């Protein structure tokens, strides 16, 4: 254990010294130092698996540290439980959502803090009012306090998570990738909120892979690589490029691969697809070799559309075709009168793949190993004499693990939940690549993925496109949509409002179509 000499510097709310953490003997943090004063926003950046979330869980009292010290307001502390950390004024928004899905927003916010009547019973009207006020105050008024948390979109759930941390004003607010699932105005609300808290003297610890916002918000930036602090710097003294280089430990040339030209035949054709309450009369085509982006605000219906195209949910009218031969892969769906895939199985057989946006709920089987998760799509196609051809299966999967650089390197037999968030995302991607699709739909595929990995994902998608794959990339990240795609579809309130050439449009134009401003 590192024994720090002397008391911490005056003025620091929080000081970490030589914090270490190991999991079953494997070190993940090797002595991290971090200092924060009131009114600061300390950004923590690093590649996937660098140890950011681990550090944050230690701060939150959710994980014990293996060594090192933590000082708060000049006193040595060691929160042993989230409860302790609460009492110390440390509030945390975790990377993974932690709401109680069956309960209302109000209850999720006020659990343990309900306003009560004199009888000791909970005063529900007061509770809803309090929750509503809180949400409005922090700029998340769009979230209804009486809504059932589990039925909200991921973005709205994230807002509730943030609001939960602010029920009583913290001294230290810790945010682990809060922006990963937000976009547009919601993102602005979040940034506004962080600035207000900062101005009120709260110390904000902020983890994000979106370096532009980090440079914009932070007062200081701590770069972590492989569990060590490589630099502590300030926005004014660094740049996005430098940060990426520091995180990755190598130079990274350009983020997006060069555009391809000369697309092939239409591979995915969606015509007049509707699903009441979600999207209306959606038509578009993706050609072989083409990467089509789809941008829209939260709740614009993109994910529902993707699920519907994929046969995970029925459409009421419309048609979905994969391949040039019309309808040969599709089947009339008697129930809805739409010519779409009736199940994901059908869609996959036709050559579709869908990387869903919520990896925890629809992307992974948490307790299964990484290998078993990735192998799910090919279980039935890798057999010999009716039995799973284990060596062949293993080889194919392990090859992908290596190609996508899923970390740690020996993760194949680890339960997938033990991977860092970004690596889990890569595992989901690997699963679909293994299926060998002809059309790949990616719903927010780089959410929570570090820049170096993003670049490798872009590169991989580009390679696949060059081999003739058709790609639909749904994203709330404007830069990504413009940089990584050939064409951009904009979706607003369940309708496609624009079809733009990615090379010749601007962020403003896309945003305009998405909020109904531009003509």
């Amino acid at each position, binding site marked *: 254990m590192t024994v720090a000499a002397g008391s911490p510097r005056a003025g620091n709310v929080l000081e970490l010294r030589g914090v270490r953490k190991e999991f079953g003997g494997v070190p993940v943090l090797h002595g991290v130092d971090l200092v924060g004063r009131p009114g600061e926003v300390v950004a923590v950046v690093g590649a996937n698996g660098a140890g950011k979330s681990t550090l944050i869980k230690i701060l939150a009292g959710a994980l014990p540290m293996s060594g090192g010290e933590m000082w708060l307001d000049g006193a040595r502390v060691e929160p042993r439980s989230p*409860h302790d950390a609460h009492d110390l004024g440390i509030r945390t928004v975790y990377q993974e959502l932690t709401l109680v899905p069956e309960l209302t927003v109000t209850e999720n916010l006020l*659990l343990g803090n309900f306003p009560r009547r004199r009888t000791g019973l909970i005063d*529900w009207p007061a509770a809803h009012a309090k929750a509503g006020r809180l949400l409005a105050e922090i700029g998340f008024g769009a979230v209804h306090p009486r809504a059932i948390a589990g039925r909200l979109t991921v973005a709205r759930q994230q807002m509730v998570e943030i609001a939960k941390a602010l029920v009583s004003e913290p001294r230290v607010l810790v945010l682990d990738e809060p922006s990963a699932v937000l976009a547009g105005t919601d993102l602005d609300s979040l940034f506004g909120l962080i600035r207000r808290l900062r101005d009120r003297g709260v110390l904000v610890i902020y983890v994000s892979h979106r370096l532009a916002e980090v440079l914009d918000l932070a007062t200081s930036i701590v770069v972590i690589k492989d569990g060590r602090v490589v630099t502590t710097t300030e926005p004014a003294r660094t740049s996005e490029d430098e940060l990426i280089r520091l995180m990755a430990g190598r130079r990274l040339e350009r983020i997006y691969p060069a555009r391809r030209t000369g697309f092939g035949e239409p591979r995915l054709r969606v015509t007049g697809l509707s699903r009441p309450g979600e999207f209306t009369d959606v038509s578009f085509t993706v050609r072989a070799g083409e990467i089509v982006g789809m941008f829209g605000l939260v709740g614009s219906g993109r994910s529902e559309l993707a699920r519907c195209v994929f046969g995970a949910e029925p459409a009421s009218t419309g048609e979905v075709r994969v391949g040039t031969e019309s309808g040969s892969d599709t089947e009339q769906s008697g129930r809805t009168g739409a010519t779409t895939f009736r199940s994901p199985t059908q869609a996959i057989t036709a050559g579709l793949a869908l990387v869903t946006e919520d990896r925890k709920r629809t992307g992974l089987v948490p307790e299964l190993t990484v290998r078993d998760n990735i192998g799910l799509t090919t279980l039935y196609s890798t057999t010999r004499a009716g039995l799973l051809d284990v060596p062949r299966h293993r080889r194919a999967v392990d090859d992908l693990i290596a190609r996508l650089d899923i970390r740690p390197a020996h993760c194949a037999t680890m339960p997938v939940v033990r991977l860092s968030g970004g690596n889990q995302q890569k595992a989901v991607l690997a699963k679909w690549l293994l299926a060998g699709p002809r059309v790949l739909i990616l719903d927010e595929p780089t959410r929570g993925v570090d820049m170096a990995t993003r670049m490798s994902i872009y590169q991989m998608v580009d390679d696949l496109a060059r081999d003739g794959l058709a790609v639909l990339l749904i994203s709330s990240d404007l830069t990504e949509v413009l940089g990584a795609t050939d064409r951009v579809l904009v979706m607003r309130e369940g309708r496609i409002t624009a079809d733009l050439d990615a090379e010749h449009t601007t962020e403003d134009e896309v945003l305009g179509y998405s909020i109904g401003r531009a003509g």
Partner: protein
Amino acid sequence: MTGQLTDAGPEPAVEPGRRNRLTVAGRPVTVETGFLTLVVLALAVAALTSDAFLTQTNLTNLLKQMVTTGLLAFGMLVVILTGGIDLSVGSVVAFAGIVTAGLVSGLPLPLAMAVGIASGIAFGLVNGILVARFELAPFVVTLAALTTIRGLAFVYSEVPIAPEHPDFFWLGSAMLGPIPLTTVIMALVFLAGGLFLSRTPAGRSIIAIGGNAETVRLAGINVRRHVVLAYAISGACAGLAGVILASRVGIAQPSVGVAFELDAIAACVIGGASLAGGRGTARGTLGGVLILVLINNLLNLYDVQSFWQQVLKGVVIVVVIGVQRASRPRA
């Protein structure tokens, strides 16, 4: 996923784009209305097809026959809400009953009854601690408890005990007008219990734990204590049910209560509770109890032969939860 249906509870907002599967006259059939319709329908059919149904004797029977299942079901609900299950309730019924009957000769009646109920609480605490503190699977812990407690009931007395004490019968047979006292007690348990679940922090925490225990822990709430509390409540209800049953029959038998847990669990689920935890209400559970008792009552009134009763009972239960399921919005 429906939240709680309790009136005083935080009502979920109606969300666009989530259609209920059943609609009547354009209005969505909610779980509540779907379920209520079912109960009313069953009662109406019963009243129309059986002369005996609406007689006072029969209605009083219905009220009496709800008591044991009702008490057990409420306690079970609380445990189920945490995501657990309590298979030991039938054995606790036997133990509490026989201990009370055994003590009545030496102790004042209320004290003897208190000991019976306390024994239920004690068993509940042990179950709860094994589940919460030692993190053992509730199903197996309470299955083991079922065996052990049944054994203990027999160890206490192999033979039935019929206390001479005339007051011993009183609790089980007293009437408040046309309403049996025991039914009133059960109703009070449901009232207080409903309030507990919908309006107290402890109740809300129990529900939240069933939804996501880790979240509740991260919110700084002592999850273990609440889980132990839930099993203790179930134990208390089972103890009370045992004391009441012994008093009602006038004889306490160590063998009583076999498979009682199954009806209690069925009542909860019929009433809309989810065995995964986090969803269920006192009101719904009471409805579930009513439906179960009605099924038995009607099959008897129609003079359906015992085996066919069993065959039909199962079929009716499936139909009921089917209707229940269909009126819940799709996840």
